């Protein structure tokens, strides 16, 4: 294979799910890049862009009907396994120090264009979250460091290597301290590579977690004698009690937890029980919004509450404790309930406070949850960071004790609470090497910038939990002149080996031995690389027996809090999260599942407190020294608890991210050496003026309409139709003046289980990625012009101070009696003979009549030229820089990029339907139920979305439609939607 550009492909087996069914004759159409591609082996940035000229052109052709075909050059030699117009899927692993997800990377004509969950992983089972879905766009982030540099001047890798090694040698010679500062490393091979480096240059590896769980590690150290994080199984827990642990959003391993959590709460397939989830928190989190019972709790009261629960539980078990802590009636009831669920309950706390975690451990111990819902023999490895080690490092730096610092994929100058201290210390470090993936605030303060590959360009492996191995393989050759950090470490340590070989060797030596069923390593390797997943079933050495003493000591220390001030919670939301991918326009435009705000962070404040302080939405305030921040009144927020999202206020991340929101990391306090994400007694100062916040939903009540139908588990078990009684009544009256159309063959339909949807927004990003949905920027969102084809409506019900939250994903309902189709004057939107409501973009003249007439308001209009597809030039409206030639590479060539003035909407991923139909046809068989999966359903970690053929009575979607819980949105209008919703069932006793 001469074309180095596709070098990664030669080793990779084609995904068997993507059988090559194209007749040989068709391959003559295969396009190829010529000369330039071969020259690109030296791969400077300019060369790269030349090479990409072809791809850009093809993307442009694919994405714009009005752009002329410039030049199509056939492949001189066709790369194996690459068939133009056909996607290949490669198994890989996404881990950026926060989120972990085994994935499949969809590669089209050499470009990774979509991330999907890998179903083979038993840990995530195909689940993804928004950031995983969005990560593919990070690959095409133009702001990334494109080549090594020294003090801002670009240098070659050879030069960088030479100088760094020289300096390392010097440090080593004088016995100076060398430190590698990285995020949590879950890759065994990377750890091996780092060890190799540390062998060559003795030093220290400090792992630093932005969302730290170091207190939990410390607590476990005290209780079990080992600093670790156990693995949790929310799927086995019938009663979940969470103290501010946002386990569906940001706590430890949310993708995995969402999967487990939702599986145990499904009432489909005849399941008649679901877990009960009780949530204590001050801020209204995604997880809290899903709880069966959500109890508002001031962060400062959390410790005492947990203590009271522990006391009560102990007293129930005959072990009394003397304590000044009061036990409320609620807690008594809760303790009773927990006590009845011994071994099938799970109590978690999100706090990064050792005493809290110690008490929670004691509770779980008391309830016998260790060994059932919590395993200590399988460790969750995603949070290995130690706040104390980090603090120590900074101390040492400030003392001038650190001579060489390698900051790999960390951004402490942005996200460490005491960034100034770090900065001061940094000045005293001799050799400063930053190895960032994305442009950030930290790297620019370092002398050397040795940019790391994006994960889609890299080899890697991971062990997220003990024995749960996954592999990562590049889906594209590095776009810029970047190099895998591991390769850099190896190189500097004197090992001239590429990381692929290193990983392979590491697996052969350390992991293969654990497996028996393969004849040799190559077979094993090829198989595991294809699957991307290897689960050995290994477990850790047994930890020592639970030592309750530290927990009891902690309990003894607890005092009732008397704090009366305003308390602050800083949190990572489901989109921007910790800000690592802040430069990702998809994530910036992703509305928060609770507030529905995007493109900013803000201060969430309870209605009562806002009233007291005379604050209204969009007033600006200062929290401590951070601000100005806009205020959003957030029902459900504890009276005196305010919250600010992390991840915003980036100053050096790239155009979409820079200057968006304010950095809330400096608000984080340190307590006992651990970062505290809740801060008591913060000052809230009102400033003059207002600041506009863009929200995709501005009305929050259902106005008493039957939009989301709800019931309780109790009523459901009595009568499966409960909450949905109105449907029978409506059905009786569904008379029509013309007969209902029958569809022979397929009749596509979708069912959405409202009980399952957690509001994680993965579907929204997946849909944007799959369907080339434009990002329109804050100003346009504020004008209510966001383009998302799928949205998750969120309504508050009940009390304004402590409302219940219900949500509902809404996309085009593909009505069989679609009001929109009737009114299009040019027949641009019609009904297909498979029941799809289809849009012919080329035919659309943009009257917006269909949109007006859509009762669900799911149609979206291209108000401006958001992507350069317009025939007129110079009128591009692209504040998020989505239409740069680089970012355009993420476009899905199977989906038309819509021009200015055109209506667009959900197509049920018709391109996927067609693709699978073709596959079935070439294989001369019927389509199998579940074969066609739209992007949203694929992305959903909760499996809330089911898609299939309504004409097949045995399809899953037909069964859902037949369920007593099923109803259609606004069905009384007789629009005959092809989307069904299953009633939301809450496990409450009320």
């Amino acid at each position, binding site marked *: 294979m001469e074309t180095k550009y596709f070098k990664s492909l030669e080793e990779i087996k084609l995904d068997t799910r993507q059988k090559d069914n194209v007749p040989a004759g068709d391959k003559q159409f295969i396009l190829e890049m010529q000369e330039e591609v071969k020259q690109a082996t030296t791969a400077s940035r300019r060369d790269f862009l030349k090479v990409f000229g072809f791809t850009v052109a093809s993307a442009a052709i694919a994405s714009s009907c009005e752009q002329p075909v410039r030049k199509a050059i056939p492949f001189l030699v066709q790369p194996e396994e690459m068939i133009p117009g056909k996607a290949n899927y490669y198994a890989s692993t996404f881990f950026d120090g926060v989120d972990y997800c085994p994935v499949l990377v969809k590669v089209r004509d050499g470009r990774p264009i979509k991330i999907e969950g890998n179903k083979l992983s038993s840990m995530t089972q195909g689940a993804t979250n928004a950031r995983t879905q969005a990560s593919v766009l990070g690959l095409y982030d133009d702001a990334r460091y494109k080549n090594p540099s020294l003090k801002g001047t670009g240098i070659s890798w050879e030069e960088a290597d030479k100088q760094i090694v020289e300096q390392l040698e010097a440090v080593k010679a004088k016995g100076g301290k060398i430190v590698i500062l990285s995020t949590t490393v879950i890759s065994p091979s990377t750890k091996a590579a780092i060890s190799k480096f540390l062998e060559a240059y003795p030093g220290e590896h400090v792992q630093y977690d932005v969302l730290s769980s170091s207190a939990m590690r410390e607590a476990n150290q005290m209780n079990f004698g080992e600093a670790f994080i156990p693995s949790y199984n929310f799927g086995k827990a019938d009663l979940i009690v969470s103290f501010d642990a946002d386990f569906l959003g940001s706590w430890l391993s949310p993708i995995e937890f969402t999967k487990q959590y939702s599986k145990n709460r499904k009432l489909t397939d005849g399941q008649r029980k679901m877990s009960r989830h009780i949530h204590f928190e001050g801020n209204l989190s995604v997880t809290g919004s899903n709880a069966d019972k959500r109890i508002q709790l001031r962060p400062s009261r959390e410790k005492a509450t947990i203590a009271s629960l522990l006391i009560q539980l102990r007293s129930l078990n005959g072990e009394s404790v003397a304590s000044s802590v009061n036990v409320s009636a609620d807690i008594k009831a809760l303790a009773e309930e927990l006590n009845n669920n011994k071994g099938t309950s799970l109590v978690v706390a999100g706090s990064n406070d050792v005493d809290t975690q110690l008490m929670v451990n004691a509770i779980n111990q008391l309830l016998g949850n260790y060994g059932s819902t919590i395993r200590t023999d399988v460790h969750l490895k995603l949070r290995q960071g130690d706040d104390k080690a980090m603090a120590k490092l900074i101390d040492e730096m400030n003392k001038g004790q650190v001579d060489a610092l390698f900051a790999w994929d960390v951004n402490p100058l942005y996200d460490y609470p005491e960034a100034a201290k770090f900065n001061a210390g940094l000045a005293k470090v001799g050799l400063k090497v930053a190895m960032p993936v994305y442009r950030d605030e930290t790297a620019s303060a370092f002398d050397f910038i040795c940019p790391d590959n994006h994960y889609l360009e890299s080899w890697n492996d991971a062990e997220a939990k003990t024995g749960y191995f996954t592999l990562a393989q590049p889906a594209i050759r590095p776009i810029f002149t970047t190099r895998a950090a591991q390769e850099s470490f190896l190189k500097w340590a004197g090992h001239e080996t590429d990381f692929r070989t290193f990983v392979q060797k590491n697996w052969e030596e350390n992991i293969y031995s654990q497996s028996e069923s393969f004849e040799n390593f190559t077979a094993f390797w090829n198989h595991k690389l294809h699957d991307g997943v290897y689960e050995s079933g290994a477990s850790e050495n047994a930890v020592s027996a639970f030592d309750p003493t530290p927990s009891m000591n902690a309990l003894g220390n607890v005092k009732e809090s008397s704090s009366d001030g305003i308390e602050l919670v800083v949190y990572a939301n489901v989109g921007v999260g910790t800000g690592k991918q802040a430069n990702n326009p998809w994530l910036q435009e992703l509305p928060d599942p609770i507030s529905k705000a995007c493109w900013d962070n803000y201060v969430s404040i309870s209605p009562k407190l806002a009233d007291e302080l005379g604050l209204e939405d969009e007033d600006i305030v200062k929290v401590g020294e951070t601000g100005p921040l806009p205020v959003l009144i957030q029902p459900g927020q504890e009276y005196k608890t305010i919250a600010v999202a992390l991840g915003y206020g980036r100053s050096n991340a790239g155009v979409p991210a820079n200057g968006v929101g304010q950095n809330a990391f400096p608000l984080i306090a340190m307590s006992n050496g651990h970062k505290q994400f809740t801060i008591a007694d913060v000052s809230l100062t009102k400033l003059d003026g207002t600041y506009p916040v863009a929200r995709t939903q501005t009305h929050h009540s259902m106005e008493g309409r039957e939009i989301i139908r709800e019931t309780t588990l109790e009523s459901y078990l009595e009568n499966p139709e409960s909450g949905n009684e109105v449907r029978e009544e409506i059905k009786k009256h569904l008379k029509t003046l*013309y*007969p*209902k*159309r029958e569809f022979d063959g397929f009749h596509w339909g979708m069912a959405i289980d409202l009980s399952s949807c957690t509001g994680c927004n993965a579907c929204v990003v997946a849909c944007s990625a799959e369907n080339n949905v434009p990002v329109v920027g804050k100003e346009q969102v504020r004008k209510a012009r966001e383009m998302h084809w799928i949205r998750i409506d969120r309504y508050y019900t009940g009390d304004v101070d402590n409302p219940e939250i219900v949500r509902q994903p809404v996309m085009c309902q593909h*009505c*069989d*009696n*679609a*009001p*929109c*189709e*009737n009114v*299009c004057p040019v*027949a641009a939107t*019609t*009904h*297909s*003979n498979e029941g799809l409501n289809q849009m012919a973009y080329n035919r659309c003249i943009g009257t917006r009549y269909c949109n007006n007439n859509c009762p669900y308001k799911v149609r979206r209009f291209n108000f401006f030229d958001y992507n350069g597809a317009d025939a007129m030039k110079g009128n591009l409206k692209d504040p998020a820089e989505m239409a740069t030639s680089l970012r355009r590479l993420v476009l899905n060539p199977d989906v038309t990029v819509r021009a200015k003035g055109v209506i667009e909407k959900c197509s049920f991923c018709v391109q996927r339907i067609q693709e699978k139909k073709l596959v079935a046809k070439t294989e001369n068989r019927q389509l199998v139920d579940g074969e066609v999966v739209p992007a949203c359903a694929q992305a959903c970690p909760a499996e809330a979305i089911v898609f299939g053929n309504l004409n097949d009575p045995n399809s899953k979607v037909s069964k859902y439609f037949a369920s007593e819980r099923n109803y259609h949105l606004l069905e009384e209008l007789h629009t*005959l939607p092809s989307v069904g919703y299953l009633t939301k069932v809450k496990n409450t006793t009320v």
Partner: protein
Amino acid sequence: MNKYITAYYTDENDLIKGVKQIREKGHNILDVFTPFPVHGLDVALGMRRSRLTRVAFGGGAVGAIVGFGFQAWVFTKAYPLNFGGKPYLSVPSFIPVTFELAVLLAAFSMVIAFFIHFKLGPGAKTVVYDERCTDDRFLVLIDAENAEADEVKKIEKALSDAGAEGITYKE
């Protein structure tokens, strides 16, 4: 036409009386030019009822049939599409266009027929006998092409008896 006699009235009632008288005397009035439509003049001149109404009816009928037929053809034969589950032959939807085309064709066929019939149109040749015909005079025109001199006299006499003014004989 080279020879003719003109005379005018200044009041439409006189005109009608005059015209009746002249016609009673057996003189053939070729035309009358008036500044506005004079009520009853068509009866006085013995004109037939207009057949333009039939043209309008024909145009309207064609418009309606073609309009409805075309829509039905498009929706059932040429390119049947499923719009919101409506039947292909969605008759109520076809009514507005059918109606508009009927009216359009009725109006245009009639007006065009009118202009063609009278050879009126942009830049049509205009024979103005008296410029005040479009102002305040009611001009009676009698053909004298083949009239003998005494015939002309008779006509002039009849005109003057009928109260006409400005009797002129042109050769």
